[in-house]
């Protein structure tokens, strides 16, 4: 995978296009917690070789659109915007794909709490044998936010 500065994102992908990488593969976002990484793959149909390119976004979480180079990128850029909260500069279309409106936290960011995981009782929170339940340590499934559902009136249940 080739790592390029975010300022070179469009020129690097345009260079791929010029080098015969005629098929667009995909764009994916990765939440690295401190930053967002964006990865693109393009394929050369003549020899089926694939080029993977990655860039790390600055704190402004902005990347330039490559949809004028690879038309198929537009769909993935909508995904980046909706699911990772990335601002895709120069994208012609930034309508969300899965949601009805622009409201809502980006679903694939690690900081976004999935309420269903908090509200659904986890069947794994039990130990073998009913009498073991008395003094066991509570267990929690991965991806379940702690302290999200609290009684904010301050009363102790």
């Amino acid at each position, binding site marked *: 995978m080739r790592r390029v500065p975010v300022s070179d994102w469009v020129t690097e992908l345009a260079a791929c296009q010029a080098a015969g990488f005629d098929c667009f593969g995909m764009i994916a976002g990765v939440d690295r917690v401190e930053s967002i990484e964006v990865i693109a793959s393009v394929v050369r149909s003549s020899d089926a070789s694939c080029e993977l390119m990655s860039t790390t976004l600055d704190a402004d979480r902005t990347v330039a659109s490559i949809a004028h180079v690879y038309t198929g990128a537009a769909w993935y850029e909508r995904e980046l915007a909706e699911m990772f909260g990335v601002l895709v500069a120069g994208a012609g279309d930034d309508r969300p794909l899965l949601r009805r409106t622009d409201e809502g936290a980006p679903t694939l960011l690690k900081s976004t709490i999935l309420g269903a995981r908090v509200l659904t009782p986890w*069947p*794994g929170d*039990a130990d*073998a044998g*009913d009498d073991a339940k008395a003094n066991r340590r509570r*267990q929690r*499934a991965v991806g379940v936010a702690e302290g999200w559902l609290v009684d904010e009136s301050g009363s102790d249940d």
Partner: protein
Amino acid sequence: MTERVIPPNAHSLIGLNPEACTSCMICVRECPVWCIDLASHTHEVTEEGARRPKVVHVLDEFTIDFGACMYCGICVDVCPFDALAWSSEIDPSAHAAGGLVHGIDQLVKWFPASGS
């Protein structure tokens, strides 16, 4: 009925062998969609000649919600006791999503006779 065109080992239902299950909870905790649930209680047995009784887990309930199950097979893979296995039975439909939750009585019938 119709001619079988899908290989019998294609991912389909999952069967349970309750005799082999130790209620260890591993499959319950590893299932990505939280669709396995079980209840068990402990029971002391003293074997002849043993110095102290041993504690065994008795499985009371074991359900798989096939309405949510993503047929990933993680439970089959992680079970240390081979108590879960793929079945080649055809998945029965239901008239409510909750009707796709199957318990021990049904799951045992889907456990293939010769293991997975």
